[in-house]
């Protein structure tokens, strides 16, 4: 009897799967999304059909996808990992040549019923392919330089494509997700120490190159960094987003101005009020308590994922679970830092809450993998 067969024997079947389903995680996801519906209703000034309703429909779709995926054995996804990655890569190439341009960057493909952002899909696909690689790779070889090359190549190709769009935020998130999976897979500390120094060097180079002939970033990106460091010196121009969102956050106080009572978001002072900056409306209307509640829900989601992963002896399942939860973490950490003026404005949505199709569907699919890994973990 192979180890594979032995694993299969222990797995829950039929109704047992429903019992093994991670209900707590599902409820937390529904809670976070519900906060999103409320906020979308509020920023649309009480117009449910504008954002809240389409978001609910998409969430229902996403939840169905997640549940279906949960009942499919995790090894099926493991076997599909590389194909999913290839598919996402092809889409990224397609968007490069045929994608629609939005705000100066090419990010999505119009499918008619929704706009597909291949870069969002790639976040999960990259986690899957790296988890697959490390679950396949012999443990002894993990830190060998030669075996480090494939995951780096797998990461750098989509990163390069995303940077070309150009979408700095997603590129950084892709890289962070990949680094986390490699770290969890047991790649030697030395590589991370070296990598960190290299990044520090690169940051120095980026700033040093400004104004030189070999300038590394675009002017608007430097401007965003400069604005991030001191938004007050350009309050109506580059610093407008951050200043306005800080005003909204600050004016919320401890318990907020009350549902539908916020002025900043409803009166359009906030940019992207229904997408990237939706957290500010939450903080304005429900104050610190509202913001902290969402943060707590996010924390619990991450903790449950980690708890599920550490008790999972299936290497692929554990790595995918941690990778998805890390990606999820990066989403909200970067978004919240951004709206609170702690990070540059890079265009990352607040997961499960911001209005948007691709990110929500892909994220729920990711949680489908987590659920599947949880249900089908070896006992």
């Amino acid at each position, binding site marked *: 009897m192979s180890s594979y067969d032995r694993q299969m024997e222990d797995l829950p079947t039929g109704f047992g799967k429903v019992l093994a389903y991670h209900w707590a995680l599902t409820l937390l996801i529904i809670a976070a999304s519900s906060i999103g519906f409320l906020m979308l209703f509020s920023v649309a000034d009480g117009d449910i059909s504008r954002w809240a309703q389409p978001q609910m429909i998409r969430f229902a779709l996403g939840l169905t996808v997640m549940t279906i995926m949960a009942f499919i054995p995790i090894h099926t996804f493991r076997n599909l990992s590389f194909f999913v990655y290839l598919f996402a890569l092809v889409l990224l190439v397609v968007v490069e040549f045929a994608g629609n341009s939005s705000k100066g960057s090419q990010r999505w493909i119009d499918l008619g019923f929704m706009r597909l952002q291949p870069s969002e899909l790639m976040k999960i696909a990259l986690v899957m392919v790296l988890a697959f690689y490390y679950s396949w790779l012999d443990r002894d070889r993990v830190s060998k330089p030669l075996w480090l090359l494939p995951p780096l190549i797998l990461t750098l190709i989509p990163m390069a494509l995303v940077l070309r769009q150009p979408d700095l935020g997603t590129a950084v998130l892709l890289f962070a997700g990949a680094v986390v999976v490699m770290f969890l897979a047991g790649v030697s500390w030395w590589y991370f120490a070296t990598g960190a120094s290299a990044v520090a060097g690169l940051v120095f180079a980026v700033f040093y190159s400004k104004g030189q002939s070999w300038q590394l970033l675009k002017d608007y990106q430097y401007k965003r960094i400069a604005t991030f460091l001191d938004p007050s010196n350009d309050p109506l121009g580059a610093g407008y987003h951050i200043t306005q969102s800080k005003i909204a956050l600050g004016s919320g106080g401890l318990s907020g101005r009350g549902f539908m009572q916020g002025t900043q978001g409803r009166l359009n002072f906030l940019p992207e009020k229904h997408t990237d900056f939706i957290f500010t409306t939450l903080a304005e209307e429900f104050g610190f308590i509202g913001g902290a509640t969402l943060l707590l829900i996010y924390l619990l989601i991450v903790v449950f994922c980690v708890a599920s992963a550490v008790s999972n002896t299936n*290497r692929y399942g554990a790595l995918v679970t941690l990778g998805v939860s890390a990606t999820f973490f990066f989403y909200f950490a970067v978004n919240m830092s951004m709206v609170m003026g702690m990070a540059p404005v890079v265009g990352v949505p607040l997961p499960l809450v911001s209005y948007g199709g691709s990110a929500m569907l892909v994220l729920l699919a990711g949680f489908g993998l987590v659920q599947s890994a949880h249900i089908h973990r070896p006992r």
Partner: protein
Amino acid sequence: MRWANDKKLKPKKLSRRAFIMLGMQVGLMGLLGFRMRQLGVEQTKQFRLLAEENRINLQLVPPARGLIYDRLGNIVANNTPLYRIQIVREQAINSTQVLRKLSDIIPISEDEMAQVLDNMAKRRPWVPVTITENLDWAQVAAVAANAPSLPGISPIVGAYRNYPKAEEFCHIVGYVGPVSDYDLSKIEDDDPLLHIPRFQIGKNGIETRAEHALRGKAGIKRIEVNAVGRVMREIDNKASEPGKNLQLTVDTELQSAALERISDESAAVVLMDVQSGDILALASAPAFDPNKFVTGISVSDWKDLNENEYRPLANKTVSGTYPPGSTFKMVVALAALEAGVIDANEQVRCTGSVKLFGSKFHCWRRGGHGQVSLVRSLRESCDVYFYEIAQRVGIEKISEMARKLGLGIRHDLPLPAIRKGLTPTKEWKRTVKGADWVIGDTLNAGIGQGFTLASPLQLAIMAARIATGTAIDPRLINTVGEDLMPVKGNTPLDINPEHLALVRRGMFEVVNGARGTARGSKITTKGMEMAGKTGTSQVRRITKKERASGVIRNKDLPWNRRDHALFVAFAPYDNPKYAVAVIVEHGGGGSKAAAPIARDVMLAALEKDDTGYGKLPSQKRRTGDPDEQTPQTPLKPRDRA
């Protein structure tokens, strides 16, 4: 087998690293929570205030500009409703179709339509775009009646400045125009109204000088807006305070008569009440239509005005300065009399020229006047007599007398570009010209040539001061709102009344004497006799050669080389009421070109005065006993010989 081996190691290692990662994540989340608390709880007050400022926008309600009346209560400047048609893109839905429908009701050209569509495309969908302005009421009513089939179209009532008298008051009242960046940089005024786009402020004349009184105070409307400035609702509204109305001292009828009389010339007329200093007419020709400036003058119109040789834009009454010529002789005569260097009977012999210090100075009459006394010298405008007495009295005393009579000083009228003119002194020549004063300069000054310069206003003031013996100051505004502007300078001049009487007698002879230079412009009506003085000031130098072969006559010279014609006068001689000064640029001789104009304007004022017409309603008649005014039927100016 591999799985079995791995089983011992794998869970341990993965969980250690997973917990490290979780630790970092929780730490970061703690940081986020801390930041949230910091922003949300600790700095709430400050951010609430900022949010409030963001939300509430103050909108200024422009006040109605003060009206301007003449002394009779006629409107000179008012505000006319301006009907505009606006379109709002997001309400119109199909803008092109709506515009086509609209063009069936009011005329809109294809070009205009294209421009409106272009403007709309550039702006946010709820910003109103003006389709057309200056519609009449019937057109607006037609549009309003068709409103249901024209979504997004709305008629707007605004106000623009209108000058019903158009040309008559252009130089006095001036005009308004939209405030420009240049204005903002120039004016020290922090009135927020100035920052309203296209807010109209005075650009010339009284509109500029009385801007502060005319403008009024802005009302304030507090409105809630969103980030892009769209109005959500009005919170409260404080009404604006309209500007003050002004009443001028100018009499529209006399002003019209004066302007009409000089309309073909480049000329100026100032008519003044000698008792109160009220300026009854202040005409500068050619005039222009100030209404053209209000909505923005076209390039071709501007070019026409700006390149016209007759300078219609200049207010020649206060901004034009000319050598006063022989009209200056009263100043020289009074200076000499006051200094005691001559007396009334002293005779000077005129042979047509006088040779002094190696130079020859000519009298206008080639053959000379023979024995000349003071009154005769004025009557016949003998130059040699004044060379002699100017030399005796000296330039300092002449200029001092000139300033006493209102020349060479800036009179405070609410008009822009008031020129000071020039009464030269030795000191002045040394500092400005860098040369010493020579006796020839004094002789030239004696006949009002050389450096001396005076504006028509100053000459009228001079005539008024000689007529009354008071230091009367001009007055152009009668009331500002409810406030009556005081009469200034109504105090006796420090001049011997006998000397003044003598000079006045000379001026009487100029007009009424059989050999007077202005005898052709005599007013024959009893009790209205005019006293005046002609002046012809050279704008070129007459060479020796030309003098030998005979001075070229004015009509044979190009226009801009001809002499300026001047005339100053007051009337009636024995009970002075009005003073007048006329200058016709390059008009030739003062007696022929200027005196008849002065006579006609003076007569118009006197005849009007007779019917009890033309006095300020708010002021009592200052002069004359009503019984003394015998009803007469005066001759029309042009019927006279």
